[in-house]
């Protein structure tokens, strides 16, 4: 598994999801903390391309041998791409949660929602409880 990291350029959702904003699109994934709590991911069931996701709502699930975890959308929009490689190698979510372990790419419907997300300092503070 990867070392514990929280890249400063990402925005974070309190349910341990991240968003990498790129113009009017964003990639989503789960944080190092989330994948560590879950254990080795053995199954990821992506949403369909074209599906609508809503901020703060679950849009898919990741599963380890023992547990199922909901994945929450940090922002609202329409899924424009899903990480197909994860169907054969879901462990990439553990190995590289911010890179090859990305889950979906979304065209944002309300970019102003970004303001409600946490920056890295706020997210780290949340983890420290």
């Amino acid at each position, binding site marked *: *598994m990867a070392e514990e990291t929280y890249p400063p350029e990402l925005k974070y959702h309190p349910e341990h999801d991240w968003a990498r904003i790129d113009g009017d699109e964003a990639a989503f994934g789960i944080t190092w903390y989330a994948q560590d709590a879950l*254990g*080795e991911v*053995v*199954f990821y*069931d992506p949403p369909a391309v074209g599906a609508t996701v809503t901020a703060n709502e679950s849009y898919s*699930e990741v*599963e*380890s*041998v*023992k547990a*199922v975890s909901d994945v929450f959308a940090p922002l609202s929009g329409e899924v424009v791409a899903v990480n197909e490689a994860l*169907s054969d190698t879901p462990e990439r979510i553990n190995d590289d949660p911010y890179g090859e372990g990305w889950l979906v790419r979304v065209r944002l419907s309300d970019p102003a929602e970004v303001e409600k997300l946490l920056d890295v300092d706020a997210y780290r503070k949340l983890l420290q409880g």
Partner: protein
Amino acid sequence: MPPATQTLRRTPLFDRHRAAGARLVPFAGWEMPVQYEGIRQEHLAVRTDAGAFDVSHMGEVETSGTDAERFLQRVLSNDVSKIAVGGAQYSVLCREDGGVLDDLFTYRLADDRFLTVTNAANHERDFAWFAEHAEGFDVDVRDVAADYAMIALQGPRARAILEGQLEGEAPARMRIVTARVAGAECLVCGTGYTGEDGVELLVPPDAAPAVWDALDATPVGLGARDTLRLEVCFHLYGNDLSEDRNPIEAGLGWCCKLDTGFVGSDALRGFEPQERLVPFAFTDPGIPRPGNPVLVDGEPRGVVTSGSHSPCLGLGIGMAYVPVDAATPGTHVEVDVRGKRRRAEIREKPLYKKEDG
């Protein structure tokens, strides 16, 4: 809310688990390691090499006296008279109506002395059941759970590891010997819960850390213990067995010898099950979980009792109670996994065979 940590019991190996970075979880009133490095790696270590499991949470009941055999014949479902001294036997403990109270291994230590290993969650109830039914028999039934820690050593290299620490002969499968392991006098049992060769060691609690340290095997938590047993379709009490199911439905008729007159045998005589516990494997992606409905011809007619990802087969597997007309291997069913229908096929036991790997 989970129970407070201080109310949980700890095994003599607790400090070892913590030092090894295990993830500790509440299990049947005990604080137990669910995983160390990861369930998949631990699972595969047992299939290809060797793993050591702390199963000290399991309980033990000793039954001795002139009527020990006759008494156990009354409470246990299998034919206890068939256990030779130094032998082991699997059986279930039934209520009068056939409902299963526990599944257990019994070892014959001497002609008139037996040791029965209980599931942690059932231990107190089992002991009370034994004590209650002992009336009229010349037996002494003792709760000896505090006298034993228990370490399972399982996998193709388990015997070689054991032999390096053992003074004396290792037991054959389904046999027990008393022998010194890493200097401590242990009961060494040729049994296990993984489908691999190996032993289970009943160890004096104060010697358990030294025995654990002497065994050069991957530490394995309860997570992999569950996936290992599920691949070979061993029952888990509380999932696949309960008071609401009888052993015939559960596919354990083979260890119920009705002629011995055990408690529950009258209810099981002539019983025709409407449902059976069967193994299945997904032909779709996904992972079945306990409680998921099983659909036969689109109708919910069964329920998953154990379900997980199989590290060896790389797919979703499980066991489910289904109607007898859908219980034949090769039958196609669906499992409703949180609203998504996943195709599955009823399979033969075991789901994983050595040659598959």
